[in-house]
């Protein structure tokens, strides 16, 4: 507490003069190889700590700089292949169902039972579940005249399904949908856009609608019972 009474002026007077201050620090600055005295006692710990920091910094940089790209990366891909496949399948079925409800269900009914004597059923019909090219062809061109499905006769008038404007992709979706809906079991179950395109190309010459006899010639094994 004796120092307490020292006035500011005395403190300043007892301080280092500026030229001495400069000289002292210049001397300290010019010492290159001073022995351990006055240096930090634990330089190795410091080296270790700073080394760890640099290491952590580099990891951080590697993880977050995104390779110095301009745009951020896409959403992280955490799904397994199985999950991806399941998602794609569910998407395809819901798309097919949408097409079916919009274009087909007014006649074939949402549950695929059709209407006796006029619109044939899709549920439990071997027209649907055998060769996928058959149903694709009917969707592409339409059908006229009488047909037999599961022993019953349907369709006295021509049905111009080819007037429905849907793409190959949508046809593939809806065919896939009806081949597995309402207890239908088909093999192969899934139809792709390319299959539809090849059917469309194969019968591109044909202008009018199919009749039962023509189809039976092309797909004998599909329609063997009818």
């Amino acid at each position, binding site marked *: 507490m004796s120092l307490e009474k020292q006035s*500011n002026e005395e*403190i300043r007077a007892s301080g280092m003069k500026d030229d001495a201050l400069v000289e*002292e620090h210049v001397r300290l600055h010019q010492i290159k190889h001073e022995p351990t005295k006055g240096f930090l006692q634990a330089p190795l710990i410091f080296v270790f700590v700073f080394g760890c920091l640099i290491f*952590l910094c580099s990891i951080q940089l590697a993880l977050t700089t995104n390779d110095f*790209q301009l745009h951020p990366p896409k959403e992280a891909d955490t799904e397994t292949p199985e999950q991806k496949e399941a998602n794609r399948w569910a998407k395809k079925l819901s798309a097919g169902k949408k097409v079916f409800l919009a274009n087909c269900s007014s006649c074939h009914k949402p549950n695929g039972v059709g209407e006796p004597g006029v619109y044939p059923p899709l549920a439990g019909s071997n027209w649907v579940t055998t060769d996928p090219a058959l149903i694709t062809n009917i969707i592409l061109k339409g059908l006229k005249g009488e047909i037999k499905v599961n022993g019953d006769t349907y369709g006295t008038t021509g049905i111009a399904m080819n007037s429905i404007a849907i793409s190959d992709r949508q046809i593939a979706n809806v065919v896939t949908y009806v081949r597995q809906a309402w207890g239908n079991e088909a093999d192969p179950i899934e139809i792709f856009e390319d299959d539809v395109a090849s059917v469309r190309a194969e019968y591109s010459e044909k202008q009018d609608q199919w009749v039962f006899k023509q189809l039976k010639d092309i797909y004998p094994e599909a329609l063997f019972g009818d």
Partner: protein
Amino acid sequence: MKKTSEQHIDQSAKLAFSFFIASAGLWLLAAALLAYIAAAKLTDPLFLASWEIFTYGKIKIIQANAFVYGWGGNSIFAVSLWIIARLSQSLIRGSTFLIFAGTVWNLAITFGLFGILDGYMLGHELLEMPKEVWPALFVSYLVISFLILVVFRSRKQSTTIAPQWFIVAALIWFPCLFIFAWSGLEINPGRGTLSSILSIWFGQNIIWLWLTPVALGCAYYIIPSVLNRPIDKYYLAIFGFWCIAALAPWSVVHHLEGGPVPMWVPAIGTVMSIAMVFPIAVASTNFHSTAFQDISRVWNYLPLRFVIFGTLSYTISSYIGVIFSLPAVAKLTQFSIINEFHFNQRVYGFFSMIIFGIVYHILPQITGREIGTAAKNFHFWTSAFGVFAILLAYLIGGLTHGVLAQQPSLEWVTVIESVKPYFLITEYAFIILGFSQLVFVLNLWKVLVPNPFACCDSGAKQKTA
């Protein structure tokens, strides 16, 4: 003989130093008033609501500019002039030019701030003053820094020491920063996000490469000078200096975390601010291991108490700043009032405290008149209390704000209501700080412009003593 040479230098510096520090004091008062208005408007939006010029956006910006360029700029000129002259052991020439350029600098800031009030604000951080005033500011700055560098050039000892590095570097860095930012923002504006990156880069670097080095230089000067012992582990100082020069300009962009900029920009900023641990550790080792060897003298000599408060606050808050730059933490706090904490700890807790200390150290030597101990003590304690209150309020309030704003179930109003108490604390703290700064300016002016009646009195006292 030595004593007289120092007195000669003081005599040559007296005019310019008094001019700069007196105007710095006036700007400090203006900034304190504006800071109070801005803080009051946050707690009561109807406060002064009927005047368009007192809009929060304008007041806040004017406060920052008056503080950084008015108080910061003038006090930097004053203390760097004196310290450079003292360490170079050479006289200051061209005081007329210094005062003329200083007048231009102050007038330009005044016009600029009125320009902001009148609606001519630019959209760049700390470059908000209208375009027209910048040439005047820039040229007057060049004149002043040129005259200081002339003094530095004529130094007796050719090898330089730490305070000289920091102060001279700050004098040179400011125009470099300005030219770089100004050409990229106004002369040849960059496209896309470049302007936002440049804007925050400049605004933060003004603090890191202009205010901070000057304050560090002052501390590197006053601590050995008063304690009469060289800086401990001085060989680290050069490392700290180059670390700040190399890392600080990179580290500031971590404030863009989560912003619409390429990802590597904030990532680099984060890494560089972690690396800023080195220079912070160096500076705090240098200062504190020297100062704590003679802590009683630090405590008793009030200017040094101010400086050590500043360096301690620098150390602690810089480490806190490093923590807040980590992406995991920044995600929470990025868009909260924590940014106020960063700005205020740097300008109030660190820069201003050190400048107060060094001015209290210089003034009696230049004018030969002591400042009353009670007044200085009052200033210290109110400053310290105000700074503590502001920083704690912004820190805790910022964390609360950031964490609550992340809860999607909470309404925005609820979040703001929960931060309101902290705004109230800062409002009162700004009142306290304003009083303490008023005391500082009164102390300053009382010494610079003595009362004619008190003058005869003290003259008589001196004669008798």
